[in-house]
Each structure stands twice: as structure tokens, then as C-alpha cells.
């Protein structure tokens, strides 16, 4: 994550399906070191599919397109080698792994990157203090019995320790209280200032109060329909996604209220 090196993550024409149903219809995005790209979109736009496909989560099929990191074809690599190559995923719902301790996993993760696990304990303690994670959790089973906030602090701590070239934040802000959100967003912002490229996938804009995007992309129905400057975030905050949903969505929008809504309208 040295500020001197410049890396490029390039997504070209990415098409993907889940359980035989196509979700992504040709996504194009390019992220360089030190940049923060926001990917925003309504529910069902394909945001989680995008993060899953980039990391190689089982159950997703790539139908077309390419993803490269400095020209290396990431889609041809198994998940662990994508991570070792410098791609990191902060999960929306971090998986509980009973009996497997955070420090043991990070030690193995460092070794697979050709880095030494010596000094990991000190690094973990320093990052835990910085991110506001209870240091007792460093030696406990991954995500087991953690609160939503602790899970995301833990995810952010792993990002900080592993120092990837690019991070995908899949709804980092979901399930997070205001303090935890600020601490996590600030840590990612600091990493970005030190050279980390960020793809921040989210439904809401509150993440961007601390993590400043350089570019905003709007994902609708598996395509990037608009890209622009950070002001786009404010526009979405004000006007919502309606403008980008197209005529089909307007047709599909409810034209009459249900009886329950009528009751509340009284």
C-alpha cells in the first residue's frame, strides 16, 4: 500500500449470474491507487453480486467480461490468490467461523503473501486501539458472538493489517452505529490516503461523510447508468434513484395504495 506504487483495478463488461439468473449486464469500472469510487444503487441493482463476483464467492457464475489487477486476470485465479494479489473484501455480513481465531487466520494470510507474521501481535494491538476494537476479540473465534459494530471494526482491522492494493467495501455502513461507522470510515480513508484503492458499494450516503469519494457510479439493473463527481451523492440523497430507474420501473411502481396504506393515510 505504498504511496509510491500505482496500481489499477479494471473491470470491463462484467456479466454475472446467480442460480442461473443474470444480475450483472456489463459493468465497467476502473479504480486506481489512492482513489475512492462509490458504487451506489437501489436494492436489487446487483451491488452485492458485484462484490461477490470480484472475490469469487461460490454460487456466482461469470458470464462475460474481465477483471484485471495491473493486467493480471483475477477471474482466472481462485479466491485466495485474488486476495494474495491485493484484492480485499469487507463483507456485508462477515461469516462466523467457530473455533478459528482471528490472529491465526491473519498469520496464515500474511504468510501466503510472503510476509512475516512476526510482529503481528503488536500490529493487531495497535490497529485494535486505532479502530476501537476490544483487544480481547483478537484471540477469539472469528465473528462469533460479535455485535454488528464489532464485526465491521474487525473487518476494517483485517484490511488495515493485510494492506491490500484494493478494497471492496460491501455495505460497510449496514448494521453500524454512528460511532463505529465513523471509526471504520476514517480508517479506510487513512488507508486510501496511503495508497489504497477503494470500491465502496452502498445503498446510502452516510458512509461518505468520513470517506470522501473521488467518483460516484450509479448501478441500476446490473449496469453503471451514470458516473460523476461526488456531488452525485448529494443529488441521490435529495432525489433518490427514481431518475435512474427508467420507464419500466415507473410502470412497475405502485399506482394505487393497499388498504393498509389507506388506513395509515386517514
Amino acid at each position: 500500500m505504498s504511496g509510491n506504487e500505482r496500481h489499477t483495478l479494471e473491470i470491463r463488461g462484467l456479466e454475472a449470474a446467480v442460480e442461473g439468473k443474470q444480475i450483472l449486464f456489463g459493468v465497467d469500472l476502473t479504480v486506481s491507487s489512492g482513489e475512492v469510487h462509490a458504487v451506489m444503487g437501489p436494492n436489487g441493482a446487483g451491488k452485492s453480486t458485484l462484490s461477490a463476483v470480484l472475490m469469487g464467492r461460490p454460487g456466482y457464475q461469470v458470464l462475460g467480461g474481465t477483471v484485471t489487477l495491473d493486467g493480471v486476470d483475477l477471474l482466472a485465479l481462485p479466491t485466495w490468490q485474488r486476495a494474495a494479489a491485493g484484492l480485499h473484501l469487507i463483507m456485508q455480513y462477515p461469516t462466523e467461523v467457530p473455533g478459528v481465531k482471528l490472529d491465526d487466520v491473519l498469520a496464515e494470510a500474511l504468510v501466503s503473501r510472503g510476509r512475516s507474521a512476526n510482529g503481528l501481535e503488536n500490529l493487531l494491538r495497535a490497529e485494535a486501539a486505532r479502530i476501537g476494537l476490544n483487544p480481547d476479540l483478537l484471540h477469539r473465534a472469528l465473528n462469533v458472538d460479535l455485535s454488528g459494530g464489532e464485526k465491521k471494526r474487525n473487518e476494517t482491522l483485517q484490511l488495515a493489517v493485510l494492506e491490500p492494493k484494493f478494497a471492496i467495501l460491501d455495505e460497510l455502513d449496514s448494521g453500524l452505529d454512528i460511532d463505529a461507522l465513523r471509526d471504520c470510515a476514517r480508517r479506510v480513508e487513512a488507508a486510501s490516503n496511503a495508497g489504497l484503492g477503494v470500491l465502496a458499494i452502498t445503498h446510502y450516503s452516510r458512509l461518505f461523510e468520513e470517506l470522501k469519494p473521488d467518483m460516484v457510479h450509479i448501478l441500476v439493473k446490473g449496469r453503471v447508468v451514470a458516473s460523476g463527481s461526488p456531488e452525485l451523492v448529494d443529488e441521490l440523497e435529495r432525489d433518490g434513484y427514481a431518475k435512474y430507474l427508467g420507464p419500466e420501473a415507473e410502470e412497475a411502481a405502485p399506482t394505487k395504495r393497499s388498504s393498509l396504506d389507506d388506513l395509515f393515510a386517514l
Partner: protein
Amino acid sequence: MTPDLASAIPGPDWLTERRVGAAQRAAAQPMPQADEEIWRYSRIEELDLQRFVFSPGAVVVTGNADCESELLESDPVAPAPDVFAEWNAALSEPIVLRTRRGQVIEAPIVLEHSVAEGQATFPRLVIHAAADSEITVVERFRSDGSGAAFVAPVVEVHAGQSARVKYLAINELGNDVWQVAHQLAWADRDSSVSLSTVALGGDYARVRTEAVATGQGSSTKQTALYFADGTQMHDFRTIQSHVAPRTQSNLLFKGAVKDTARSVYTGLIRIGHEAKGAAAFQTNRNLTLSEGAWAESVPNLDIETNDVRCSHASTVGPIDPEQRFYLESRGVSPEIAERLIVLGFFDEVLEQLPLPAMAAQLRARVAAKLDGVAASVAGAVA
């Protein structure tokens, strides 16, 4: 195996009489068949006892100086749940450990059994823990060289009022050895008994473990870690029996099968009408690490009173792909991810074993087995 063998073993007349009686009952019984419920899923029909020659076996005992004893005519006689336990009663020369009232034996007593090719052995350990005493015993079963052998060990635990007894059996037998083992424990008032098993070895290795809470306020715990690979089979039959009020039993059995290995767990919680306020918990979890591996888990309840707390949980399945993906997304290779997850799975049992130092050693054995290193090689470097 014949009754003549039983009468030839030296001992007082009352004991010889008991031995011969057991031998006659054993000789009169047919060999078990897999269509009997208690032998269901087993490989018992493959066993040919005639292949083996009776041997008194070889055992080294350390740490027992304070409580070495002998059988007494007045000691309770343990029942023999099957023909192998009956042969054990007939042919064993038991090691008897007897604590004094209030005696606390801090260091574990260790029995190291060595089973040689072609032998049939029937080791027996009897623990009499007097009131308010404390004792920990580890029994380790290993093979002396390679080759087929048969071992049918029995351990009897009699825990007196408020006594604390911990027992751990470690099966590191060779891959051609058959084992049919029995663990029998009776927990008197306010006592606690823990029966643990770590099974790594054997061709077919069965343990029937029965813990009976006989005195009110007593508690029993049964734990096991089992890991079979190649063509091994591990077979567990567990009984948590409550016959007194306010008794508690906990059971945690965790196993893994790899290659074409198999495992069976059948567990029974039995709560008698006199066991009001009893609490019984049973958990059996199994990981199938290969397509060709097979595990069965069958929990059963037999409850005769309403005033009980009871739960059982049982699972069989491969490693959760989400857990695997999570570790791989951190940059951990699939092989190491699997190793971490399986060791993490077993840690819950290892952490509950009576001896932390031994737990670390056993964890290393499990890791070596996961990596496909032969048990004998791992044994040599440990």
C-alpha cells in the same frame, strides 16, 4: 477364548469363580450381529476372534503409587453389556486405583497400553474414588508395531459422594487393530465424573460409554474427539442415565471422517421417573471431509418424568462453504483454510480435556493426520 483360560489366571477363589462364570456366559453367547439395534451400522460381522491369541497384554503405569489397590470381594460387580465385556470380566487382571476419603491426587495417573500383532487383550481399569477425593487417569492405547490385533478394554468408575473423577482414553492404535471398548461410570451423591475419549487410531474402533448419575446432585460429562481417515471406522454408543433427582449430564462428541472412513454415533439420554429436576444435554457434530466419507448420528431420548431439562443436537455435513470462502477471501489457501476450520471445530473438545498439556499434543496429532502424515510418523516426532 475359552473358560479354561479364565480358571488359569491366578487370584483368590471368589475371583476365579467370578471369572469362570463370566467366561461361561461369554462362551454361551453368540457373536453379535449387525441387525441388532445396538450393533446397527457396525462392522461387527467382519470380526473373527479366532484369528487372535489371548494375551494378558502389556501396560506401564505411572503415578499410581498413592492409590494402587486390588479387587475386593465386597466391591460392586459391574454388569457386562455385551460378550466382549463378559470376556473382559473373565480374562482381565484389573488395575485397581482406590483413593482414600478426601485424598486429592493432583498429578494424573497414566496407563500406557501396548498391543502387539496377533494378540487379543482385555485390559481393565477400575477406579474407586472415595468420598470427597479427586483423581485423574489417562489411558493410552498404542500398537507395538503394525499388524492386526484385537483389544477389548473396560474402565469402571465408581465415584463416591462428592468425589471428582476425570478419565481420558486415547486411541492411537495402528490402522489394522480392532477395538471394542466399554466405559462404565456411576456417580454417587454430589460427585462429578468426566469420561473423555480421543480416537485417532484403529481399523474398527468402538466405544460404548455409559454414565449413570446414581446419587442426587451428581453430574456426569462425556466428551469425545474422533477423526477417521483411509478405511477406518469409529463407532460410539453413548448412554446418559439419570436415576436420582437433580442430576446433570453433558455430552459433547465431535468427529470428522476423511477419504472413505466412516463413523457412527448413537446416543441415548435415559431419565428415570425418580430423576426429578434432572438436566441432560447431548451434542454430536460430524464433519465429512471427503465425498466418499460417511457419518451417521442418531440421538434418542427415553424420559419417564416431566420435570426435566433436556436437549440434543446432531449434525452431519461438509465444511460450511461460507466459512471456507471467508478464510480464502483473506488470502488463506483452501488446504490451510480446511485445516484451520477442522482444528477450530475440534478445539471445543480439546479445551475440555482434563490435561491442557496433553491437549496441545493431541491437537498436533490431529493436524498431522489432516496433513496426511501417517500416525506412526507423527508419534515418532512427538
